[in-house]
C-alpha cells in the first residue's frame, strides 16, 4: 500500500465533512472491529516505495483507546488528523507512510488491536476514523502497547528497511503501563500466531528496535507519574519514553520527534515552535541527545 498523495484540499474537504464541529463519538462511530483491520487476518502490512513516493519512511502510531483515555480521546483523536496533515506537509522524514493502530488490553478487551494500512494520502484519516474505540481495558496497571511492537516486528515489510536499511518509527500513546510479557495465548488470540513461549516485553522491544525507532508518549494531562507508570517506562525505554504534559501538543511533539530521528538538532526543533507548544515540545524532547543519533560511522561516547 502507500500509493497516492496527500493534499491539503483533500484534508480540508474531508475534515469539514467528517470532523469539524463533531463530537468524538460521531467521528469514531464504529461499534465493532472491521475485519480488514483485525490483525488475525493480516499476514503482512507493506510500506513500499512508488512512483509518487520513491523514498518512503514507515510510521506507526498506536493510540490507546481504553476507557481510561476517554477524557483525552476527544482531543487526541481530533488532533490526529491535524497531525497527519503536519507530517505530510512538513515532511519531517522523507515520504512518510502512516499506519494507525488502536490499542486496548488483550487480557480483557474484545478487540485489543486494530491496524490500518500504511498510507500516504487522505485514506490515512478515513481509515483512522473507521477504527473502533472500544473503551475497554482492565484495572491491571497496563494496556497492551507491546502488541504494536509485535505486529511491527513480525508482520510488516518495508522498502525503507529492505532497500535502504532505514528504520521506520513507532509511536504508542497512552496513560498506563505495559505488561512484563506478551503471553503466548494473547498472541494467539490477537494474531492467530502460535509461539512456543511468552515473550518478554524488554526482549520484544529489542527485537522491534532492529527495524524501528520506538517511542512511547505518556499522556500526563491531569495524571500523575505513577498513574502513567513513568518510572517503569523510563526503565524500559529510557529517553524514548516521552512525557506529554499538554495533550493538545501531541501532533507537534510527534512531528518534532520525527525531525529528531531524522537528525535535526534538538534545540533547533524546539525553537521552531512558539509559545505553549514550544514549552510542551521542550518538556517532551528535553532529554533526547540528537547528536548521538546523528553520528553515523563514528564512535559514540557515553
Amino acid at each position, binding site marked *: 500500500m502507500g500509493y497516492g498523495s496527500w493534499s491539503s484540499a483533500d484534508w480540508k474537504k474531508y475534515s469539514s465533512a467528517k470532523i469539524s464541529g463533531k463530537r468524538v463519538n460521531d467521528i469514531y462511530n464504529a461499534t465493532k472491529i472491521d475485519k480488514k483491520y483485525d490483525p488475525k487476518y493480516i499476514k503482512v502490512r507493506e510500506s513500499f516505495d512508488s512512483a509518487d513516493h520513491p523514498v518512503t519512511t514507515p510510521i506507526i502510531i498506536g493510540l490507546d483507546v481504553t476507557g481510561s483515555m476517554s477524557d483525552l480521546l476527544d482531543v487526541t483523536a481530533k488532533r490526529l488528523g491535524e497531525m497527519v496533515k503536519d507530517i505530510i506537509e512538513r515532511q519531517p522524514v522523507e515520504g512518510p507512510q502512516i499506519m494507525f493502530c488502536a490499542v486496548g488490553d488483550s487480557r480483557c478487551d474484545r478487540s485489543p488491536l486494530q491496524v490500518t494500512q500504511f498510507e500516504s494520502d487522505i485514506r490515512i484519516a478515513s481509515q483512522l476514523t473507521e477504527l473502533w474505540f472500544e473503551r475497554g481495558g482492565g484495572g491491571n496497571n497496563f494496556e497492551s502497547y507491546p502488541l504494536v511492537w509485535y505486529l511491527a516486528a513480525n508482520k510488516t515489510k518495508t522498502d525503507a528497511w529492505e532497500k535502504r536499511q532505514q528504520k521506520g518509527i513507532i509511536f504508542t500513546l497512552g496513560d498506563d503501563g505495559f505488561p512484563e510479557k506478551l503471553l503466548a495465548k494473547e498472541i494467539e488470540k490477537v494474531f492467530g500466531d502460535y509461539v512456543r513461549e511468552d*515473550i518478554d516485553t524488554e*526482549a520484544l522491544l529489542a*527485537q522491534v528496535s532492529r527495524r524501528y525507532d520506538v517511542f512511547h508518549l505518556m499522556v500526563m494531562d491531569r495524571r500523575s507519574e505513577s498513574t502513567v507508570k513513568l518510572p517503569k517506562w523510563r526503565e524500559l525505554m529510557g529517553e524514548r519514553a516521552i512525557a506529554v504534559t499538554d495533550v493538545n501538543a501531541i501532533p507537534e511533539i510527534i512531528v518534532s520527534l520525527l525531525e529528531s530521528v531524522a537528525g535535526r538538532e534538538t534545540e533547533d526543533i524546539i525553537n521552531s515552535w512558539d509559545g505553549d507548544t514550544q514549552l510542551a515540545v521542550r518538556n517532551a524532547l528535553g532529554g533526547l541527545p540528537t547528536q548521538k543519533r546523528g553520528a553515523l560511522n563514528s564512535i559514540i561516547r557515553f
Partner: protein
Amino acid sequence: MDISDILKCKCCIDIFPEDISLAQPIYMALMLKYHPDRCSNPRAPEASAVINEMFGKLKKAHSLQEKLFRCGSQAIGIKYLMAVTQEYGVEYVGENAVWLLIKDDLADCFTRSEARTDLFFREYLPQQILAQAEMFLPFVTKVIDTEEGLLVETCKRKGELPLSRVLDFYGGKLDSRHAAWIISRLLGICCYAEARGIVWNCLAEENLFIDPAEHTVRVGGGWWFAAREGSRMIGAQSTVYACLSSLTKTDGTARHITDLECVKAIARRILPDDAPKAVIDYTESVCSSSAFEEMEKWEQVITDGFGGRKFTHMNVRLPDISESV
C-alpha cells in the same frame, strides 16, 4: 586437476598449497600442461589465466609493507600485510600480529577503559578454561603512545583473517554453513562474557578475526569498549550502537542483551538469502535473557536447519583477501 576443476577455483588453496616454495613447482607443472601454446583445449586460455591469477595472489600476499611511527626521538616500525580503516583509526594486519592505531581524540576510550588490560578478560580463570578462551580473547603485547596516536600491538595466529575482508571476498554474504559456525563461536564468546559478568559491547564484523581452517573467531579489535554488566560503558562503535536498546542508549549501561543483539545482527548480515528457514527465523527471533539459553536454541536450530553438525571446509586464505586492500 583438469580444466573444469581449475575453472571452478575461487581460492588460492583450491589449486596451490599455502607454502609458496611448494606452490612454485605446481605452478610450473600446471602451466606446462595448460599453457595455450601447449594445450589444444579451447578453454586452456581461461584455465591458464586462473592459474596465473591465483599464483600471482599467492606471491603477492606475503610481501610486507612497512610503516614507521614517531615516538619522541624514536621511530617504531611495523611490517604489515593490509591496512583496514576503522572508526577509531586504522588496523594494520600482519602475519602474527595486529597493530591498532587509535586516533588521539579517541585514545582516552582505551586508556580510561577497565578492559584495556588482559586481566579484565582473564582474571581468576582456571588454566583449563583459559586455554580454551585464548582462542578468542584479545592478547595485547604492547601499547605505545606515538605522535600518530595510540598504537596497540596484539597477537594473532597466522591463519586468522579480518572477517570484514573475508566478507568482501565472498561478496558480502557467506555460505550458510560457514555463517553457522561463526554464529556458534560468537554465541560461545557471549556465554563466556556472561559467565564472567562482562559485556563485550564490540561484537561486529570489523572487530572480528576468523580462522577459516580452524573455524575459530577472535575478538581482535574494539574490546576496550567492553564493560562489566551493569556498569557504565565508555562508548560504542556505530555498528554496535545500532544494536543497543533505547534504555542503553540513554543510560550507557552495559547489558548482556547487547552482545546477543549484536550476534543476531551479524548473522542477519552475513547469511545468504537461501539459508535454511530455521536459521533465518532464528536471526529474526527475540533474544533470550541469557546467552546460555540462546546457545541451546541455536543448537536446535542447527539440527533443524542443517540436519546436524558437519565440518565444512572454508578455503579462503590470506592471499585471497590481501589483494583487495
